[in-house]
């Protein structure tokens, strides 16, 4: 990557326990560099989503230091921190009583942008995620799954946050739409160079989209590897993953060369 690397998100000895004492994350150490797409890979209950929610302070670490943009999360005003970070989730979470237009305009609006700038930004974003501007006046229930997910991405990008958190954003889509959105994500990411933290349990998606893959298992970070390293690794858990998903993988680098 041409940009000078700089750690944007830094986990240092992070543990997270539920009030009942159950530990969901144990001693996590991870540095996420500016402009990279780090994929948190793991099975259900491995702590991927928990890790993600610590970043935008929806959850607070029980132990350890977590820095975002060089500042500890507990020193941030949580509202400011979250508006600095785009958030896309699997169920999209579009507001059903808002039109597409108002959904996308949400963060600019609560940030008190002038109306003309918001309107212009919404048009830009619809184009960016490949949506027909005519759907701006529709409600989420009138859209297809793929369109809804695109609106979700546009909404997360609205205030141009440097960081994007994506929690299995393409998980509920049919395979063809998913492949389409994955391709668009790569093209978008090449243009925007956001720092992306992407949660998935799908190894193919991880290899395709990630610049690095962080493998989680039972609340512990086992390895952090590039897709190429992942493919040649003999580490047991990595190998188990590859076995489960068969052969013939495509990585982001290969895709970029095409």
């Amino acid at each position, binding site marked *: 990557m041409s940009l000078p690397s700089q750690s944007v998100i830094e986990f240092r000895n992070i543990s997270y326990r539920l009030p009942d004492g159950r530990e969901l994350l144990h001693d996590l150490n991870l540095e996420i560099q500016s402009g990279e797409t780090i994929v948190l890979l793991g099975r259900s209950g491995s702590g991927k989503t928990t890790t993600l*929610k610590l970043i*935008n302070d*929806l959850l607070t670490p029980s132990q350890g230091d977590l820095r975002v943009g060089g500042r500890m999360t507990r020193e941030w005003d*949580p*509202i*400011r*921190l*979250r*508006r*600095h970070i*785009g*958030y896309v*989730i*699997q*169920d*999209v*979470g*579009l*507001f*059903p*009583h808002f039109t597409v237009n108002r959904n996308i305009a*949400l*963060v600019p609006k*609560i940030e008190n942008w002038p109306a003309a700038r918001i309107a212009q930004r919404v048009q830009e974003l619809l184009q960016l995620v490949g949506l027909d501007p005519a759907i701006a006046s529709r*409600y989420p*229930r009138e859209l297809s799954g793929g369109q809804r997910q695109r609106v979700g991405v546009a*909404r*997360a990008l609205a205030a141009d946050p440097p960081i994007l*958190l994506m929690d299995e954003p393409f998980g509920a889509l049919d395979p063809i739409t998913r492949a389409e959105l994955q391709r668009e994500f790569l093209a978008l990411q090449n243009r925007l160079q956001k720092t992306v933290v992407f949660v998935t349990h799908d190894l193919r998606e991880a290899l395709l989209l990630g610049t690095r893959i962080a493998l989680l298992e039972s609340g512990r970070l086992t390895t952090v590897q590039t897709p190429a390293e992942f493919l040649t690794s003999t580490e047991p858990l990595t190998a188990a993953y590859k076995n489960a998903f068969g052969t013939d993988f495509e990585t982001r680098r290969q895709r970029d060369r095409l």
Partner: protein
Amino acid sequence: MNLWQFILQNRTEILELTLEHLWLVGISTTLAVLIGIPLGIAITRWPALNKPILGGANIIQTIPSLALFGFLLPAPWIGARADRLAILALALYALLPLIRNTYAGIKGVDRAVVEAGRGMGMTDRQLLLQVELPLALGVIIAGVRVATVISVGLATIAAAIGAGGLGEYIFRGLAMVNNQVILAGAIPAAAMALLADVSLGWLEKHLSPQ
């Protein structure tokens, strides 16, 4: 003399009592909405308040209405006038459906929607006013509907303590063993309950998010 003639003959008084009835129900329901909805919101924010508030409203509901009117009689200012007393008692009865439906409506909003809003940096106030309340509105109106219909019926008992309303005819008819007099009070009351039910039902349907 048939019922229709009786009603025609007494139409001025019936109209007066109907308006009085409407006033008792209107003021008490408004009061209950102003107290019940904020309480319902409060218990979604502070779960520790959930049990005492819902429990309290539940206990009030179990008190027989005549007894409640009696309990409130010695209260200062309130007990001094029958209509004040009736309004307070009716408002207390209306609290439970309002608190419960506000709470259930907000709790029933899709978790993903609320989480997305919070994750994007909405404040609690913005979440409440822009997301939770609009999405819970249908359920809250359903609570208002139930409370209103209950109030219209209960308000007939207010006549027993001299607060007026259509109950006057019902009690008078009972004392005279005259069905016509009872019906002259009961029919307008039933019509009022039906009307409230239908119109608030329409509102509920049109304000619910699809």
